[in-house]
């Protein structure tokens, strides 16, 4: 795709959001493609959110949480991992282009990794040929 992609990022409050904060305060440069949505935990992200985001015009979706074992709620990300694994496989099966829905673990101390993840995800979304998959067709203009 030619235009600047718009990626919706669900970042968990305790790790990934703080990681993004650290990337900012450390003045690390990374693409400005993310629209961040702070959630209490990666397990809060219902797979419906992902499909809804694609439907409403997100070019990509990133869900990021704490590393396994680091969850603020002890085991939220373990459950999240299972949910995402199942959803990811199902979406791949129905032909969603690779690179549109991504997952990552970023801790509060990994500002550098956060920037790398954003670069990786942005590049991935830029490779996607058809971002209109699952985009809702409306009879009226959005925005």
């Amino acid at each position: 795709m030619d235009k600047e992609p718009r990626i919706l990022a669900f970042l968990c409050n305790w790790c990934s959001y703080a990681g993004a904060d650290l990337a900012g305060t450390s003045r690390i440069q990374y693409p400005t493609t993310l629209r961040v949505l702070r959630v209490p935990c990666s397990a809060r992200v219902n797979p419906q959110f992902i499909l809804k985001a694609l439907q409403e015009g997100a070019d990509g979706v990133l869900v990021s949480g704490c590393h396994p074992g680091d969850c603020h709620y002890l085991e939220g990300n373990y459950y999240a991992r299972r949910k995402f694994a199942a959803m990811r496989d199902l979406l791949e099966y129905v032909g969603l282009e690779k690179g549109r829905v991504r997952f990552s673990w970023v801790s509060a101390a990994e500002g550098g990794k956060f920037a790398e993840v954003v670069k990786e995800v942005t590049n991935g979304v830029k490779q996607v040929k058809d971002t209109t998959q699952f985009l809702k067709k409306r009879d009226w203009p959005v925005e």
Partner: protein
Amino acid sequence: MSSMTDAIREEARKILSDGKVDFVIGYAEGDTPIQAKPVFISRVEDVDKLVWPSFGLVNLATYLSRYRTSKDRIGIVAKGCDSRSIVALLKENQIDRDRLFIIGVNCPGMLSRQVAREKAGEIIAAENKGETWSFTTVEGNKEVSCFELMPSNCAACRHHAPVISDVVVGDPITEPDGDGYDSVREFEKKSAPERYQYLMSEMSACIRCYACRQACPTCNCDECFVDITQPRWVDKGLESTDLAIWQLIRVYHQAGRCVDCGACEEACPMGVKLLWLTRKMNFIVKERFGFEAGVDPEALPPLATYEKDDSQEFIL
């Protein structure tokens, strides 16, 4: 088939006259050809309405969650898949085991009305001639073999025998080789755009009647996500992505609960193919989490538990 019918009637008669149950859920002869309808028998003299059908893809466990809060003791005729659904419901505390009397049936596989309609058209009358069925349609007569009428889920079935039961009728059946997921592997060979195209073209016929949901034993939420208006997850109407997302999320909600009974596809008035999706969900759950719905009464549902070393090759 008739010996199965007799055996089911006898068991039903026994439990009803002994007062073990308040009613028995089973199959009765339908009002139209090649249709079996569910029937609730509460009096001994009505027991002869029960039959063992050839076209009984209705999953009788669907009705159990409606008795979640009642005190009724229920007898139920359960094929292999129905019994797995019952296990799935027991796991989710939808019904008490001690209120149930399960008449398990070693099911040789059902025939599909949906497939019959595809092969022969609108059927006015039908007659079983052993290995084939003779259908009378508006265009004339047509013979179709039983083998051709078997739905894809029965052909892929590896659990013909009931998982839990109080009595079992019918002769044991040897399970075929393989895991039954060949159709999924075959579909995966297509390119991604082709697969997306297939999803969209199949779902474009959907009229949002929710018959698939109503026919499904594990679609038993009091309020379905698709009916929620605050927030409105899926818009009303027949926009193509709404249709696709509705079915994708419904299938996703069946992760580790779907027993591949085929009731959803059989119930669809528009002939939308659904089993290619539900079977993939089952395949994912089996491959990733080593779980099969309703097979092990003790195992925790796969999305309600986790292993510390679950695979995470897809996570950055």
